[in-house]
């Protein structure tokens, strides 16, 4: 209530200023639009009254730390201007609480470590989109281990089922899930768009007796749309029972926080006969993994002099090699190893940028990298602005040390 009154008063104040400034403009709506664009400059008005903040000329000048870390003179002397107020209101998210859910949408997560990977986030976001915010339906996240970050990702409830993502075929995950679907009377089950997730989705759908929507890009409460194999048709599914959501087509950011409270389910995994035995993952050299999906990328730029050392370090650390456009032009790496606007986009978990300046075109290729570590001799290089950790040192020296220490640790 107070915010609405303040906003109305502020709008009127803004409008009066703008109309005074733009006497020529006939349309008051146009004047207000100009005022909105210049809103950020109107930082010196109080949010409650819309009046200009009165500065005490005799007060001691205070310093605040700006976003860049440098101290800045606080012009408002401690009072919060309107744009900072609005930013604070925007950044603090309300919590979406659900007391008695009328139904459940189950999201089966894939993560083996305690973190959510992008496929898990898409799965939860899809479940959230199917459940909606007003219908009283809760999103129940199922995972094998306790996962951090479920509140921001959209889960109302969570439950642990040990052995859920078991890779062998000696437990019947889908029998447990269908029993859970009957017990909780849930309308939809969402899986991750991974190999295990799609397999579980198809098996569960066959058990229940529906056709699953694999790779759906449009999701609603009652229907969803997926692309057909040849790319020519859209398949519209009536009723969303078993779904896999395509990554990148569901919004994973929310303007609410959610309570990811624990839910007790009295179910355990049912044993099935193991006709297919899991022999474990193969030790493939990382260099053979396609660059778009490689988890660990070592990228060399024009600042590297010793390329044989670079190749040896990549082999020793078991990293996928990549290079910038300049490096591929000169022939140090083949063209299919190029990362950037005209090359591949990397979605690595860790991306080490050695001796590259970070031109805008290269930064476009590393937008989706989770963590970027930059080693560069120049502290003003644009890669330093993008990187999570930057070291100002010579790339060749650091590579030699990495090789030596890694060899020591693995011998």
């Amino acid at each position, binding site marked *: 209530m107070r915010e609405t009154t303040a906003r109305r008063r502020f709008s009127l104040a803004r409008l009066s200023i703008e109309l005074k400034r733009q006497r020529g403009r006939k349309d008051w709506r146009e004047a207000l639009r100009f005022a909105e664009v210049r809103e950020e400059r109107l930082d010196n008005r109080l949010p409650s009254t819309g009046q200009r903040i009165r500065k005490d000329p005799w007060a001691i000048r205070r310093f605040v730390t700006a976003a860049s870390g440098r101290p800045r003179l606080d012009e408002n002397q401690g009072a919060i201007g309107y744009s900072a107020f609005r930013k604070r209101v925007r950044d603090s998210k309300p919590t979406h609480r659900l007391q008695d859910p009328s139904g459940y949408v189950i999201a089966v997560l894939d993560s083996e470590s305690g973190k959510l990977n992008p496929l898990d986030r898409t799965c939860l976001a899809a479940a959230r989109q199917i459940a909606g915010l007003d219908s009283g339906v809760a999103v129940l996240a199922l995972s094998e281990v306790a996962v951090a970050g479920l509140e921001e990702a959209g889960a109302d409830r969570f439950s642990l089922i040990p052995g859920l993502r078991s890779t062998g075929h000696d437990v019947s995950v889908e029998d447990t899930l269908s029993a859970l679907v009957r017990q909780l009377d849930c309308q939809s089950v969402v899986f991750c768009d991974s190999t295990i997730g799609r397999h579980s989705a198809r098996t569960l759908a066959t058990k229940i007796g529906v056709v699953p929507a694999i790779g759906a890009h449009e999701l609603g409460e009652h229907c969803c749309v997926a692309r057909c194999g040849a790319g020519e048709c859209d*398949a519209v599914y009536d009723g969303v029972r078993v779904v896999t959501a395509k990554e990148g087509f569901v919004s994973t950011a929310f303007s609410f926080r959610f309570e990811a409270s624990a839910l007790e389910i009295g179910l355990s995994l049912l044993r099935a006969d193991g006709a297919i035995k899991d022999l474990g993952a193969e030790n493939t050299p990382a260099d053979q993994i396609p660059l778009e999906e490689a988890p660990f990328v070592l990228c060399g730029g024009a600042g590297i002099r010793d390329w044989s050392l670079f190749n040896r370090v990549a082999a020793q650390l078991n990293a996928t090699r990549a290079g910038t456009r300049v490096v591929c032009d000169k022939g140090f790496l083949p063209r299919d190893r190029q990362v950037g606007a005209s090359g591949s986009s990397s979605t690595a978990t860790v991306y080490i940028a050695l001796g590259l300046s970070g031109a805008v075109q290269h930064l476009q290729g590393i937008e989706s990298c989770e963590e970027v570590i930059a080693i560069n001799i120049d502290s003003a290089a644009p890669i330093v602005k993008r990187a999570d950790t930057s070291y100002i040192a010579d790339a060749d020296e650091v590579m030699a040390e990495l090789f030596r220490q890694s060899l020591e640790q693995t011998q």
Partner: protein
Amino acid sequence: MKLHSIGVLLSAGMNPANGRMRRSPIDAQALELVLMLREVNPAVTLEAIHIGDMSNEPALREYMGMGLEAVTLLEQGPGSDPVALLSDYLQSRNMDLIVAGCAALDAGASGVFPYQLSQALAIPVLPDVTALVVTEHALVAKQARERGVRQNFEIGSPAIITVSPLAPSSRLPAYVRARAGTITTILRDDHSVMGQAVPALRGPTLRPSAPMRKALASADPNATAEERLRAVTALKDGAGDLHEGMQSEQIASEILARLKQVGLHRSKTSDFATGVEK
């Protein structure tokens, strides 16, 4: 391990470029896997099965051009259930392994047919296989997962295998072989199968494809265009850690410690698996 017979399920799809029926690329990759297996183990017998009618003959000729001598055609009557038809036939043939593509080219492409078949025959399914190796004691299949992870599985018999698009690409058909191949039609005359037909699962309705809309990056649906642009293009701009004047040894040890924390660097004791976060 003695592999007696392998069945390959072939389907046909429409080529969007010219409207003609063609072989499905993923089924061709499945056939390629089995042909490569037969080249290594000549004792393996191979039977290719297609459900449909003779109007798909051009597509079947393309498959036979890859080196397949014969294709069995199961004629599907109107209103009959393909799952019941195929499971009935496969039970009579007693196969060790059934290989199929991961999804059909047309008509929904949910990839659920091998799973319906596995439920009808009560045998397990292994999806997304890229390689098959027959050793002395077992049949080992390599499954393709995300981030370049390849998982090995030992398969008992009988089982159904679904082939991933990452499998080796299929060979091109040769005209002479395509002409020389035979198509054996098996007409299902006994109405018992059709009478007991379980109504097929209600699939999706198809419509011409509309452009897919990517999700917005920012959380606030009321964000202005300026805010959305800034959310997408903003760099860290000072929010990252900057270390100046450190020695190379210290930098290297910090990087290796971080890699170990994430789980991407092996140490002396642990076994290394690509892409698994510990």
